[in-house]
């Protein structure tokens, strides 16, 4: 009696966060629209750009909300890896500078050529603040609790939202809800297309980059394209939960990039050296059901759980021919040795038979 009908829609509402690295999601035909919750659909979130940088156990998460259309209120809910200690207005051009790093102006491109991705209770409001026309609320709670808070506070959740909220709440019960007040935007002189950058400071030791959120509310066949930028102290190890994520660049960040980022408002924390990673997400929304797990130091491996999918679907993200592409094999071999050892020990105990009473 349970023929589950085909689903042509996928997860609507969140834009999420991450941890150990920097994520920038740039606008694309279908990309980065996750998280929109409109009162009547007249306001559309056209672009969500995000930078998540991990340095010394602290993530700085910078994202920009850009809306267009008419209406009074619209919002977005973003899953966070941990509780932020601060939410402030982000730098003026950090996101643009990162986008420029991989899409330089034509003349720079030419020059470079010449040289050579409750029933149980209520959500707890942890933090509330306002940044320009955005009312920001950081919540702690399960998927049902956060969903209920959202609906009680005027967010119109799409049908895939409950599953997506549960998906993220199973790993971190911290979410950020951002509501865009069109009336206040008008008072502030903001017009359609203006973006509002915000930066969250999140101490965390469990970094991950949300990708599934990009497919929120999209039909399964809708293609999602996004640029993902990571900035970490060391070269990261990456695990994803499926196809559609390619590693385009992995290198020491240039001094000019770090100097430029450091000179923006609130970006003085950028250290002298960081590792720069650029990935591209290109997948149908129906297949983008995973996140990106990141390990930012040499002593730990990315969490399998943080990919959001079952083990058979997990795959490493590494450049073709990279020496680091062999680390998952080494991990698998090591796990195999341990399992074999346990089985052998168990067989030996069994061969000895039960101990006499």
């Amino acid at each position, binding site marked *: *009696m*349970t023929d589950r*009908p085909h689903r042509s829609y996928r997860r609507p509402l969140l834009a999420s966060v991450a941890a150990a690295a920097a994520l920038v999601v740039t606008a694309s035909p279908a990309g980065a629209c996750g998280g929109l919750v409109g009162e009547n659909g007249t306001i559309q979130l056209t672009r969500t750009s995000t930078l998540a940088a991990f340095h010394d156990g602290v993530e700085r998460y910078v994202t920009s909300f850009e809306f267009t259309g008419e209406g009074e209120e619209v919002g977005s809910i973003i899953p966070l890896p941990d509780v932020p200690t601060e939410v402030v207005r982000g730098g003026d051009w950090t996101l643009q500078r990162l986008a420029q790093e991989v899409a330089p102006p034509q003349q720079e491109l030419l020059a470079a050529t010449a040289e050579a991705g409750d029933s149980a209770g209520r959500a707890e409001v942890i933090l509330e603040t306002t940044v320009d026309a955005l009312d920001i609320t950081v919540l702690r709670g399960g998927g*049902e609790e956060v969903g209920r808070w959202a609906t009680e506070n005027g967010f119109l959740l799409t049908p895939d939202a*409950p599953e997506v909220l549960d998906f993220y709440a199973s790993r971190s019960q911290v979410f950020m809800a951002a509501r865009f007040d069109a009336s206040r935007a008008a008072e502030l002189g903001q017009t359609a297309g203006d973006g509002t950058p915000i930066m969250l400071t999140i101490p965390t030791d469990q970094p991950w980059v949300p990708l599934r959120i990009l497919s929120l509310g999209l039909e399964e066949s809708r293609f999602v394209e996004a640029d993902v930028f990571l900035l970490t102290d060391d070269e990261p190890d990456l695990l994803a939960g499926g196809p559609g994520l390619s590693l385009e660049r992995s290198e020491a960040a240039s001094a000019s990039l770090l100097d430029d980022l450091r000179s923006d408002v609130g970006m003085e924390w950028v250290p002298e050296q960081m590792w720069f990673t650029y990935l591209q997400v290109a997948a149908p929304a129906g297949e983008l059901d995973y996140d990106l797990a990141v390990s930012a130091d040499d002593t730990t491996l990315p969490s399998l759980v943080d990919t959001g999918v079952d083990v058979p679907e997990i795959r490493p993200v590494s450049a073709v021919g990279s020496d680091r592409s062999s680390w998952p094999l080494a991990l698998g071999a090591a796990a195999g040795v341990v399992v074999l050892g346990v089985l052998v020990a168990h067989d030996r105990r069994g061969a000895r038979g039960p101990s006499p009473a």
Partner: protein
Amino acid sequence: MRPGKVAVRAALALVVGVGTAATGYAMDASAGPQDAVGPGRVRVEIGIEHSQFSIGHLQVEEGTLVEFVVDNDDPIAHELIVGDADVHRAHEDGSELRHPPVPGEVSVGGGDRGLTYFAFDEPGRVEFACHLPGHVAYGMVGEIEVVQTD
């Protein structure tokens, strides 16, 4: 069956349902495929989680008055609309966010329980669905097969 006829029968069923003592039996339709339920008064429990009905198909005998109990475990609102093609066509735009107490139609808020009745008097197929925006496309649709009584 014409919509008017369905409405009259359903309305009659509602009255009958309210006036009938609880002589029927309750069942949990989420348990999986089973034989046709009915006739008489039957209670069918339908759960909703992650915007999916707990059942996609139900078989009832003609002459059965089904009491639908809808438990919405999602934090968002849903609805259960039972009826023929004309009834569903009238709801397809999802413009009614809340439904008045019409037989076979019930709105259920997040975390709430809803109740409605529907009389299945003639053999055939009747759809049930949630017509809130995007919900049918997400898969919130199912079918009730009304079979002849031996």
